[in-house]
């Protein structure tokens, strides 16, 4: 990765971009995007590094964006109850791309992890610059929300 102090941030070493396109392509939200559109999504990704046991976000905090696990693992928990253990290639927190509602669970890195963050302000900017790519992303997000809602309904049916 380009050293932020001594490196030239405008030189395209590709070191930060390397490996991002294959990762993004596997995310269902971006599966309908062309190569050119995917490169635009790549420009709004932030690579964030988390230490062992560092909190990524807390339950109740305003949600601003989603994360994709590039390296490492993430544990999702509500209170003391562990809801999911995610690994490389998984994504979480995508609801925050649609609204600022509080996070419904806490995400912690049980080991050192590198995550790609995509945040709502940048997504809105992308929608403004490239409405067609933005629409594709928002449509897939809505499909994903619909799937999750149906799964939750089925679960509720079983319980009731």
């Amino acid at each position, binding site marked *: 990765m380009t050293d932020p102090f001594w490196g030239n941030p*405008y030189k395209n070493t590709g070191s930060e971009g390397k490996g991002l396109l294959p990762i993004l392509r596997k995310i269902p939200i971006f599966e309908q995007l062309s190569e050119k559109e995917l490169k635009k999504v790549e420009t709004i990704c932030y690579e964030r590094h*988390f230490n062992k046991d560092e909190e990524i976000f807390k339950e109740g905090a305003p949600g*601003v964006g989603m994360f994709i696990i590039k390296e490492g693992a993430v544990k999702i928990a509500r209170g003391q109850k562990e809801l999911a253990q995610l690994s490389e290639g998984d994504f979480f927190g995508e609801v925050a791309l649609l609204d600022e509602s509080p996070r419904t669970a806490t995400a912690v890195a049980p080991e050192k992890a590198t995550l790609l963050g995509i945040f709502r302000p940048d997504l809105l900017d992308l929608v403004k610059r490239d409405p067609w790519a933005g629409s594709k992303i928002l449509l897939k997000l809505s499909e994903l929300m619909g799937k999750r809602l149906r799964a939750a309904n089925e679960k509720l049916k079983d319980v009731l």
Partner: protein
Amino acid sequence: MSWQKLIPLFAAAGVILGTFYLLKDLLTPFILSVFLAYLLSPVVDFMERRGFSRAMSIAFLYLGFAATLGVGGFFLKGPVMSQVKGLTENMPEYTKRAKDMGQQMQKKLSFLGSLQGSGDKSATMDMAKYAGKAAGFVSSKILSLFAAIPTMILVPFITMFFLKDGRAIKKFAIGFVPNRYFEMALTLLYEVDQGIGRYIRGQLMDSVAVGALYTIGLFLAHIKYAFILGPLAGIFNLIPMFGPLIGAVPAMIVTAVSTNNFLMPWAWIAIITLIVQLIDNVVTGPLIVGQSVDMHPLVIIFSLLVGAQVMGLLGMLIAIPAATAIKVTFLVGRNRLRDYEIV
């Protein structure tokens, strides 16, 4: 609420602001470029939406500007250059005239009987001195605009980089923020960007409209140096509340020293100022600027004074965007710090 946790943030903010203050003279072309980039960004975004790459969109924009300047320069070069030449050549004579007028005014007002100068100097000399200083001040400010031509050549280049790489620069800068504050900082940056972007675009477009109207009005009224004084009034219009009044002053001073009978031109300048401000407040202002600055007038006045103290005229121009940024930072930051349980 544990505000001690914010000490490192305040310290960092203090270091950044201190650095900006120390480098304020070097920052002038960058500040002007940021203003221009905010103004031109929607145009570039529009072309990007039509399928052009960002670089191509910026190239088209600059070509369009060059063509407009070329055509405009072809038609206006003669009148503008002759006015500039006339003003610069006649400035020493105008300064002398201002002093003479000061003396004459002092004689006429001497019946008031209370205009004694300080110490051994007579009041006559004081009035002449101040009139001469006023004329000299206005002329130096007008001439300094032309001395800033190298800066004006630098500004389009810097603007081009801000337009092309502004997002990458923001992303690079915010990458330094620790994880704990990252989402909050991102949201804050977005809201500040939206707030001051709207204000700068609105104000700049409004000032262009006011400058154009003023120039046309002065030209039609046969006021000397209309092509210099009109755009100058447009620039001063960027200053909220006082800008329109300040904008009329150079016109009045220059007219007073460049014509023998200045009462009629002054009347015209006053009428033109009133008409332009009426059009601005009723038509162009609401259409272009939309909402007025959402700040108490005392806050606006204080910001303008601080801006003037720190960076002179440029400081007054950026005072309100800076105050808006501080206000949004405070309001959004306070809520976010609670939401993220940082304090």
